[in-house]
């Protein structure tokens, strides 16, 4: 008998169907991955299984059975017994899934207590919580029971979530994008933990993800979702070897391929940062006196030549974004930055402003980097108004249209507002905003990590084309080595604000010298966790 049996599952919000006629089964000891891009309805399916949808959703199904019990006909009390008792659930964002005001020991114990009829003593509960946390690979669980969620790293928080989900030995575990918010090395560890628990307990694991790399490594069977429907389902090997549906083929083909065009021989440096440090003061007391400093970037030197992409790689907290901001003079830094022969690190803001047209930035989150109150035309023209004051209205419009054209957007985008566009289109607008100023140097701060995989590839292609056309120098900041390989000529690996390793991209990928680099590469390309533990808060060290 299968653990989950779903037939004819349809969910609609206000008459609009987001999930249509979905059917699948899951057996014990099996991992089923539901794969799809954002908006495909895959998370809605997970919530519908336990009838956790918001009240304005309409749920109909021929059959939803969990472990032989009919979920559709259950009353609230029975549902509560199934939730957590029969099926544990892990969500994407472990910070918001944990109560920030309660200690983790109490939260794990509560998960146990809710489903235990006979009362347990305090000691027994505590012992059970420690055992669960240890099974979830939580380091030093005995002494960390009194920690609050904000004191833990993302990976540790997700381990707490897993401990809570497994608290009552449920036969089913539903993991909704369990690693999307985590760094690649930690992602690999968490997935390895889920695999181990599945084997040890004979769990049925329903894995909801957008990441085909994760699916390839961890799933037995795959269901591909598109626009609310399952378009293809089958064994993982079959799907990867012989994808039948065009959408699946498109997803598989959307891994970024190839590498960047070679740098022209004799290309001169556009920007050179020498021994750059960014420090944040730690302030305490009534008068907010600085009692110490955190070095987010600690003595890093990077040179980017014309037409060259330097990949700045590291996990979150490694200082890569601070480094990018500092090179643009957006963050106060010590050291020397030579941009086109001038030292901009010591320049006043006013003089620096005149140089800003030559160095631009594209941000990670295309939803946050465009002002919601301005039209696309106003957004792109803003820099022109500052740096090309003499332009007539017509000339300015012509340049804006040319920039839109260059990033592959139609002219009718001009009068629209950012919320009318998809994530990929918004990122194109952000790129157009930078390109219209004809910069020499562009900082790309994880420009693809908020996008779907197929869109990522398009953006990578666009960035490559722009570089080839204009001889741009890129500083490409990313934690995703798959994208970095497609774009970067040289790679600088950062950890805790310091350079761990640097060199030509091929050399770094072929023969990484440092454990940290090896872990990053293994996690990115093989979805494999190395034994070296990096699962600790990546806080930079304190310096005086």
């Amino acid at each position: 008998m299968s653990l989950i049996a779903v037939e004819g599952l349809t969910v609609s919000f206000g008459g609009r169907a987001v999930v249509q006629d979905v059917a699948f089964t899951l057996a014990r000891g099996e991992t089923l991955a539901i794969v799809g891009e954002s908006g495909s309805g895959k998370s809605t399916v997970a919530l519908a299984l336990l009838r956790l949808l918001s009240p304005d959703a309409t749920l109909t199904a021929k059959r939803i059975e969990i472990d032989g019990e009919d979920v559709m006909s259950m009353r609230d009390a029975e549902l509560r017994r199934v939730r957590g008792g029969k099926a544990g659930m892990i969500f994407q964002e472990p910070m918001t899934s944990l109560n920030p005001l309660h200690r983790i020991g109490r939260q794990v114990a509560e998960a146990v207590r809710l489903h235990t009829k006979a009362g347990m003593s305090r000691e027994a509960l505590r012992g059970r919580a420690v055992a669960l946390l240890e099974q979830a690979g939580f380091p030093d669980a005995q002494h960390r029971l009194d920690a609050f969620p904000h004191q833990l790293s993302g990976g540790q928080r997700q381990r707490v979530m897993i401990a809570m989900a497994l608290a009552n030995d449920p036969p089913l575990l539903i993991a909704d994008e369990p690693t999307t918010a985590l760094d690649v090395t930690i992602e690999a560890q968490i997935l390895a933990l889920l695999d181990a628990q599945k084997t040890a307990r004979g769990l049925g694991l329903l894995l909801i993800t957008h990441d085909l790399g994760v699916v390839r490594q961890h799933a037995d069977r795959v269901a591909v979702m598109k626009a609310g429907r399952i378009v293809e389902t089958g064994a993982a090997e079959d799907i990867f070897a012989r994808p039948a549906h065009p959408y699946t083929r498109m997803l598989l083909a959307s891994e970024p391929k190839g590498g960047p065009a070679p740098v022209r021989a004799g290309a001169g440096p556009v920007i050179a940062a020498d021994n750059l440090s960014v420090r944040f003061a730690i302030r305490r007391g009534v008068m907010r006196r600085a009692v110490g400093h955190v070095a987010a970037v600690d003595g890093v030197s990077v040179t980017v030549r014309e037409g060259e992409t330097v990949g700045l790689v590291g996990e979150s907290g490694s200082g890569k974004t601070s480094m990018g901001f500092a090179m643009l003079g957006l963050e106060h830094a010590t050291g020397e930055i030579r941009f086109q022969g001038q030292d901009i690190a010591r320049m006043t803001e006013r003089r620096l402003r005149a140089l800003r047209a030559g160095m631009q930035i594209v941000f990670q989150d295309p939803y946050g980097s465009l002002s919601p109150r301005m039209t696309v035309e106003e957004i792109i023209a803003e820099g022109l108004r500052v740096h090309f004051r003499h332009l007539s209205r017509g000339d300015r419009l012509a340049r804006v249209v040319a920039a839109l054209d260059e990033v592959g957007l139609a002219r009718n985008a001009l009068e629209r507002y950012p919320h009318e566009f998809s994530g990929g289109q918004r990122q194109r607008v952000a790129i157009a905003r930078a390109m219209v100023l004809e910069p020499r140097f562009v900082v790309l701060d994880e420009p693809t990590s908020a996008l779907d995989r197929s869109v990522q590839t398009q953006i990578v292609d666009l960035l490559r084309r722009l570089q080839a056309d204009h001889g741009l120098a890129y500083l490409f900041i990313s934690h995703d080595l798959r994208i970095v390989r497609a774009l970067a000529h040289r790679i600088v690996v950062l950890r805790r604000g310091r350079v761990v390793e640097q060199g030509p991209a091929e050399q770094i990928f072929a023969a990484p010298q440092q454990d940290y680099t090896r872990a990053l590469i293994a996690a990115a390309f093989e979805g494999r966790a190395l034994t070296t533990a990096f699962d600790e808060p990546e806080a930079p060290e304190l310096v005086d």
Partner: protein
Amino acid sequence: MSADTIPRRSWISPLNRRRLAAFRAHRRGFYALWVFLVLFGISLFAGVVANDRPLVIRFDGHFLFPILHDYSEDRFGPDFMPTEADYADPSVQAAIRAHGWMIWPLIPFSYDTTVENLNRPAPSPPSWRNWLGTDDQGRDVLARVIYGFRISVLFGFTLTSLASVIGILAGAVQGYYGGLTDLLFQRFIEIWSGLPDLFMLIILSSIIAPSFWVLLLFLLLFNWINLTGVVRAEFLRGRTLDYVRAAKALGVSDVAVMRRHILPNAMVATMTFLPFTLSGSVTILASLDFLGFGLPPGSPSLGELVSQGRDNLQAPWLAITAFVVLGGLLILLIFIGEAVRDAFNPRKTGFR
């Protein structure tokens, strides 16, 4: 999707259109706004509605407009003195009627007109002549209410808008630059807001006679603080937004970044505060007038009416009128404020 089919953008952005719809959907606030606008509109024309001079006089084939011009009394007959005409004087009225006609306003009294020929000592109860009775100085209460409403609302509007402008500027500078600027400014505000403004006002009024503008200036000194906190918080949050950083990277100047990118966010918080600040200002003026430290004696003011009601409990129409007018005005402002707050609530109108 051809290049020619660019839809013309209307002057009102989609976000504001949605806010307008949300405001309309708030029926109570929407009607309160209309009632308020009608009442305020009437009070703006107080000089036409309630005046002790005729609106138009037809005299010897000439049109005269006493509410616009002063006419000498001897114009209406050789027997009169060359002083300003007193149109309430029966002999003047008779002289005008003999040579033409005149049209009186609906309420033939101004706020400072002493009503003649009362059959009993002032305050006199409501009658066909004085719809809301007279106060203890023998002045028509309705006329004073109309003028008092106008001065209260105008005072409130002026104080609120000036205080908002200063408060937004101060909050913006603090939040945007942060650091030491913020630190010093915050300590200054803490000390400044510790000053007892009511006592300072009482002391001031014993030194110089308070007029509309002196009072406004003095209240302004303390009222701008209310908004700075909210605006500062918005700017502190706003300066780390990606699109603000992007604008900085484009080389946009600080002032332009503040105005174009962060201020609209701060305006949401400000707009939701505004109606409540307005009703607060109305209350402050009324309470100062009540205590006798407000507008100069004789000015039409709602606060003064309240104090008359207290002094003349045997004439309940004074207290009741004061209560209904002041309470009604504040309730209208609060209802409007609630509707504005809902209209600007990002959870009800999608995004900010």
